[in-house]
Structures are given as C-alpha cells and as structure tokens.
C-alpha cells in the first residue's frame, strides 16, 4: 500500500513541473509582445518596458522559466500588475467563500449523485429509474450560468426566498452564510451530481451482472445486503473517479457562478484579472486550480487502492 502511494506521488512530480512550464509558457506563445498585450492598446512604450522588466520578460526564456518555477516552489505567486500587491495577499480573503462553496457543493453533489444513482440502479427499468435519468441528462445539458440566472429569477426575484445577490461571510453567522450561499450551492450541486448519477447507475448495473453477484444470491443473502455490500463496493471505483472529475468541473462552474452571484471568491478574482489582463494573477489561478486537481486525482488513486485489493499489488 505505502509503496503504491509513494510510486503514485513520484509520477505526480513531473506532471506538476509540466503544469508550471505550460502555465509559464502561455505568456510566450502569445502572438506579439506579451507586455504590449498586457499593457493594452493605450500603453505607452515606457509602460510596456516597465511591464517587461516587472515580469522579467527581458531575460532569456529558460532563465525566466527557472525563476518562475523557483518562485512557485516557494509558494510565491508574484505581484499583481493592476494593484501592485503580492498575489498571496490578494488570494487570502478570497479563500473562504470559494472553499465554503466548494466543500458544500462536493458533499451535496456526491450525496445527491450517488444516492439518486443507486436509487436508479435499484429500480432499474421502472418509472423512477427513467425519471432520475431524465433529471440527470438535463443536469448534464443545462448551462450552469443560465440555470443560475433562472434560479435567481424564480427564487430571489419572484419568490423572494433568498437575496438576489450578495454574500454574507461566515462571520455574519452560519445561518446567514448558508442562506446567502444556498442558490449557488444548489445550482452547482445539481449540475455536478448529474454525471455522478449516470456513472453510479451504470457501474452498479454492470456489477449486478457479474457472476459473483449470482454467488451472493445463491448464498441466500438479502437483496439489500447484496446491493449495498456486494454490488456497491466493487462499483465504487468508477464512482470515486467521477466524483474526482466533478471537482474539475466545479472549478469551471465557480468562475461563472461567483460572477453571477457576486461571491467574492477566487473565481471572481480570475474573471476580473482577465478583463484587466493581470497575467500574474491568471498564472497563479491556473497553478492553484491545476495543483488542486492533481491532488484530488492523487487522493482518488489512493482511495482506489483502498477499495480494490488488486491495485495495491
């Protein structure tokens, strides 16, 4: 088991490095002078030169790359061009809203997705099954930002149950915080759970056809025991995979949701940085997201080994 984890960690290192290289190189593949692009149309030559030296663009490529990777390793994301403040400082106050949203959505979408998927598999072929699958396919096809707007119109504008926009930090009290996060959490959880539902259902149906399920039934086990132990355990590998993948999809969802619901999180910061062409922030966000996803994948792989003895050698 430990050997497997270490092995898996070692594979991760080059990927992290490459992620750094790609993040850095994005600036280089831009057509024309990156400093001019960042500066915008109205930038004077002096301003452009200033940006160039601030970003170290006047140095040779590999030296810049080395500097960049070394800084990232130290956890130093550099300085924002727009506000001239260290990015680490800018990130800090924005962590809480995004993390809160993220944790709520991951928990809720997993519970919803796995639960409904299991219900669907248990009732396979019935009307309930079809209803769940329609619900899931709709969640798969609906654009999140549109659903967010729709939910604002229905629940905030017409019914007045929730604030239209506006974020209450945890400091305002837990209940107030949850209330202000309710719509974004629900919208993202529904969309996130759609794929989990489908995969859970199909994974369980596949295991239900296995010979060892027949063995379990031939032993006289209750159908409940067969389903929740003999079927669920082996089907949890694809389920865990898709839950992990959902986290990636959420990162995308947050960029849009935080903008719509005016949640002062990292996603909103990224969108602002893009309109301001604040490239160091964009790079920092890319690194944060990519490394988060790599860590999630690592956790998923370790959970695999826990579930399936064949993986842990």
């Amino acid at each position: 088991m430990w050997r497997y984890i270490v092995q898996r960690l070692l594979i991760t290192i080059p990927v992290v490095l490459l992620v750094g290289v790609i993040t850095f190189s994005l600036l280089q593949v831009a057509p024309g002078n990156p400093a001019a692009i960042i500066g915008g149309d109205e930038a004077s030559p002096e301003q452009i030169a200033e940006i160039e030296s601030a970003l170290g663009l006047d140095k040779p490529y590999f030296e810049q790359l080395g500097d960049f990777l070394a800084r990232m390793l130290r956890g130093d994301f550099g300085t924002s061009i727009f506000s001239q403040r260290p990015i680490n400082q800018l990130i800090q106050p924005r962590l809480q809203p995004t993390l809160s949203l993220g944790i709520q959505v991951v928990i809720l979408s997993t519970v919803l997705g796995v639960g409904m998927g299991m219900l669907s598999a248990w009732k396979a072929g019935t009307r309930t099954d079809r209803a769940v699958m329609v619900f899931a396919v709709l969640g798969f096809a609906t654009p999140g930002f549109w659903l967010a707007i729709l939910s604002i119109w229905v629940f905030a504008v017409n019914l007045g149950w929730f604030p239209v926009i506006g974020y209450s930090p945890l400091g305002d009290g837990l209940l107030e915080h949850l209330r202000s996060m309710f719509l974004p959490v629900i919208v993202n959880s529904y969309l996130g759970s759609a794929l989990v539902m489908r995969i859970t259902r199909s994974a369980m149906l596949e295991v239900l056809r296995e010979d060892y399920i027949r063995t379990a039934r031939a032993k006289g086990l209750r159908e409940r025991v067969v389903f929740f132990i003999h079927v669920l355990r082996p089907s949890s590998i694809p389920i865990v995979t898709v839950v992990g993948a959902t986290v990636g999809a959420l990162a995308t969802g947050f960029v849009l949701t935080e903008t719509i619901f005016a949640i002062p999180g990292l996603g909103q910061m990224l969108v602002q940085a893009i309109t301001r062409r604040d490239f160091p922030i964009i790079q920092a966000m890319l690194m944060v997201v990519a490394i988060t996803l790599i860590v999630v994948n690592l956790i998923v792989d370790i959970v695999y080994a826990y579930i399936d003895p064949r993986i842990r050698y």
Partner: protein
Amino acid sequence: MATTIRPEDVTFARPLQERLRDTWSSAIGALKRDPVLAGSVFILLVGLFLVAFSTFLTRTEYTRPEPFLRLLGPSADHWFGTDDTGRDVFDRVLVGTRISFLVGFSVTALSAVGGTAIGLVAGYNRLLDNIIMRFVDALLAFPTILLALALIALWGPGLFNVIIALTVTGTASKVRLVRSQVLSLRESTYVEASRVAGASSIRILVSHIMPNTLGIVIVLSTFTFASSILAEAGLSFLGVGVPTHIPSWGNIIANGQRHVQVAFWISFFPGVFLTVTVLAVVLIGDALRDHLDPKLRGRLESTHGGTDE
C-alpha cells in the same frame, strides 16, 4: 497447412460501401425504434437549417437598437420579447445558432483529426509516447474553460481564438483515449496475425488500428461538441468570447442577466435553445455509444430485481 496467409486475407474490414449501407439502414431502424433519438436528430437538423438560413428568417433588424422598443415582453410582434436596446430576441437567438454550431463543429472536427493523429503516433512510438502523454496529462490538469480563459486573456477575445482555445483541450482528451485504444488493439489477435503475415507497421496502423479507434472517437466527439457549445456560451457570457455585436446564445444570456429582475425572457429563451441543442447531442452520443459498444447494450436486461419471476 501449407496455405500462405497474405496481409490482405487478414483484413477484417468489409468494403466501405457495404459498411456504409449497413450503417445507414441500421441508423434508420434505430430512429424508427427510438422516438427520443429521432427527436434529437430532428433538433440537430433544425439547427443546421438555422445555421444556413436564419438570416433570411429574421423579421427585424436584429443588430439595430430601437430605443422605443426596449425590454418589451414576449408578444405576437416579438415572440421572445426585446432586449435592453430594443432588439428582437427571437431573431437574435435564431442567428445565434450559427455561432454555437460553428464553434461546435470546428472544435469537434479539429480535435478529432488532431487527437486521432497524435494518439496513433503516441500509441505506436514508445519514445514519443512518453513525451506526448506527459504533456497531455499536464494539459488535462487544467479545466477546459480556465485554460481557454487564460489563452484568450493573452490573444484577446474573438471567435477564432475561442475555437483554438477549446480545440487544445479537446485534442488532449482524444489523444489520451485513442492512445489507450491503440495500446490495447496492438495486443489483439488480429493485429498479431497481420504482423505475423508481414504487414508493415504503417499498414497495420492505418488499415487495422485506425478504423477501430473511429467508433470511440465519434462517441467522444459528441461529448466534445456538446461541451464546446457550452464552453463558448460560457466564455461569451463572461465577455471574452464572441463580441457582442455578433449575437451568440452566450452573450444574449449575459445581456439578459443584467435585466433579470424585469426582463427574464432575454436570458430565458437562448438558454432553452442552448439546453435543447446540448441535450440532443448528448442523447445522440448515448445512442451511438450503445450501438458501438455492445457490452453497454442491454444493461437493463439483467438487474438485481431479476432473480425472481
């Protein structure tokens, strides 16, 4: 056993014409059996029709602001109402179809061709495989929209840049899939057989392995099509996609967001079009997957309820 086996004897593929005929007739059969699938195909055909003819169907000057017609609700004159500058939402949504389909088809086609080519190379050359796959792993560590956002932040907004940005990640995911397919096909008996029979690597790759990756690439392509339509709408919504003077479902929804309290219709209708289109593509993809992967077919036929009569 003195018979010599020539490479052409080992070919399992039937003549292309015959296969196409089979595919065609089985597709017609599937449409007759499955009304949901038939509906999905119909929706895509309507979409294609709009791509070609939507500009002839418009009844208003959908780009010209009409200050006296601002924020009108749906009516006989303006089926989907008007937006904040008095432009007809119905016409704009119809014309917006072009952008979604253009992005969808371009990204799908480019990434299918690129992904298959690179995937085949990666699957057949150990050295290149290592380099390509590490790069692909790293690229796939970024969520599609974030990478696209970053690229567009540098290149500037615009339709072309959106397509290129989305193609990058679309290609990466296909490389991974095709490559894994190649790796498993390489060990299959019939590839072994044609290798023994003296077929060259290139021949095996082109005539045996590539046709067998086609199915899975097509299935993944429907997913790419759906997700790139959604991504384009998302990017346009954030204001970094298609510029606002060209109507796109994404930027119409974005425009409506600001007026959601008084004019929900601006955002509502393009969103319905977007959802229905993506839904149709996803359902067609499901049907194709069931058709191409018999293992997945008839999963319903044996379930847990099934030990009893």
